[in-house]
């Protein structure tokens, strides 16, 4: 018997105690008792080894002590954790099975599923933390089972898709696919999700085996357990960060949808400003080809086309931007020449961001285009038309990809 062997025995005897604090206390108490015995034996003239052996033998049946101590320290809390784990896993499996059929809805950009799954993963990681502390075997088993459903729901599709992306060299969207918060419907994002799932399953299996086997507390096993805890912590931070980004993305998407759908017959005018045809198409919810197909040419180099009765799309070649006009009750056949004739002193609207905007009161046109200095402003003033409007009118504008900004009318200084 050596001090190392004694430590091992004490660890085994107390290993069934769920709470780590109670386990330590019980171990210290037994250690004190054995050392009292040991010191008495030394005083009686025994050698160190004999003194240790006799002190340990005096404990009696070690397996019985372990069982009795485990029973004495059994807590309601530990049972509650196991029950909650089973109930939660059953619920998450029920959720995940239908979720497999909802993958197509993810393509439409609903972030809700991503947020819910992220929260489920965070709860699973919390359960794994608790299973380390309480030495539970049930909790990591149920955590692994719930993740296996994830894997079955998403794994096959994403692995095949990402494999073909690599094979065909189709990396066009690779970087954007990897951005957390926008990973909802992209193959690479789902692939990362599956990778996370596999890691969680591996961790759960490791913790389950560790708790079941109750390994002796050698340095290597303690290091392995510490590494598992650190990995759990890192995964929790990553998932929490992804959930936060998904929520932000969802909020921005809601803002975008809100401004697209709002009734434009209100007093407030809405400006949709796009820098490219692609952005214009997205804002108007039409295809890019539809934007291009509707373009025509005039002598001023401004292309204009009409798109239903609501707004006109103009693609201004000099500024290389698509300008969207909100048309308020106008006819389809309004031409640019007519607008130029109406040119008068203007109210210029200085947008807090980059665009300059003019308003045509008669037609209800709001003309927005990038204007960085006075020269550009004069140039556009020559080719665009505006009429005085009532002062102190506040307009709300939304620029794609940014938050809402305010536009306040003020009179142009001559």
């Amino acid at each position, binding site marked *: 018997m050596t001090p190392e062997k004694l430590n091992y025995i004490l660890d085994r005897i107390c290993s069934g105690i769920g709470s780590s604090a109670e386990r330590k*206390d*019980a171990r*210290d*108490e*037994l*250690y*004190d*008792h*054995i*050392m*009292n*015995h040991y*010191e008495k034996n030394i005083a009686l003239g025994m050698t160190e080894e004999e003194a240790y052996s006799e002190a340990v033998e*005096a*404990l*009696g*049946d*070690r397996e*019985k*002590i372990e069982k*009795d*101590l485990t*029973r*004495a*320290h059994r807590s309601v809390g530990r049972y509650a954790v196991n029950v909650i784990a089973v109930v939660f896993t059953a619920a998450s499996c029920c959720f995940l099975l239908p979720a497999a059929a909802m993958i197509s809805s993810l393509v439409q950009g609903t972030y809700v599923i991503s947020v819910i799954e992220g929260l489920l993963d965070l709860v699973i990681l919390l359960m794994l933390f608790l299973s380390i502390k309480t030495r539970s075997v049930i909790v990591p088993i149920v955590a692994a089972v719930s993740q296996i459903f994830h894997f079955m729901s998403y794994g096959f599709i994403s692995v095949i898709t990402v494999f073909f992306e690599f094979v065909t060299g189709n990396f066009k969207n690779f970087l954007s696919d990897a951005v957390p918060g926008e990973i909802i419907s992209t193959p690479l994002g789902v692939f990362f999700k599956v990778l996370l799932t596999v890691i969680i399953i591996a961790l759960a299996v490791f913790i389950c085996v560790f708790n079941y086997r109750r390994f002796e507390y050698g340095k290597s096993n303690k290091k392995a357990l510490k590494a598992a805890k650190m990995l759990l912590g890192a995964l929790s931070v990553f998932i929490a960060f992804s959930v936060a980004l998904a929520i932000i993305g969802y909020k921005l998407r809601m803002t975008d949808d809100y401004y697209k759908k709002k009734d434009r017959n209100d007093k407030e005018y809405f400006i949709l400003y796009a820098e490219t045809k692609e952005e214009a198409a997205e804002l108007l919810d039409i295809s890019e080809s539809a934007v291009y197909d509707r373009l025509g040419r005039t002598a001023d180099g401004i292309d204009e086309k009409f798109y239903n009765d609501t707004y006109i799309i103009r693609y201004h070649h000099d500024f290389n931007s698509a300008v969207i006009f909100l048309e308020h009750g106008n006819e389809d056949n309004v031409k640019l020449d007519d607008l130029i004739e109406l040119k008068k002193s203007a109210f210029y609207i200085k947008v807090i961001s980059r665009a300059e905007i003019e308003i045509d009161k008669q037609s209800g046109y709001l003309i927005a285009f990038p204007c960085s200095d006075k020269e550009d402003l004069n140039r556009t003033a020559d080719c665009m038309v505006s009429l005085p409007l009532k002062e102190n009118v506040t307009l709300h504008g939304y620029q794609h990809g940014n938050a809402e900004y305010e536009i306040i009318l003020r009179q142009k200084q001559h």
Partner: protein
Amino acid sequence: MRINKELSKGSNAMLVLSVISRRDMYGYQIIKVIGMSSESVFEMNEGTLYPILHSLEADKCLESYWCEAEGRRRKYYKITEKGKKVLASKEKEWKEFSTAVGKVLGGADLVGA
């Protein structure tokens, strides 16, 4: 004379509460006091004592505190009010039991037998 374990099993908790009720003690000390008081009739070992102590503590019959002694932590136990009541109840039960056993073994007259 060693007593059959089954015979002493039911009284172990009472013995532990009884010695602790006199003064605060730690585990090794409890075993020594019980052994000396019973003139070595009751030789409780550690494997029996500590589960009893922890169960009594979980039942709020005992409370514990830690002290530093001889360079290591030592856990002392003291009896609580509930523990005193439990002890009183067990002592009463034991007295009734031992009186009844004594009467039977003493050959009390069997009326109507």
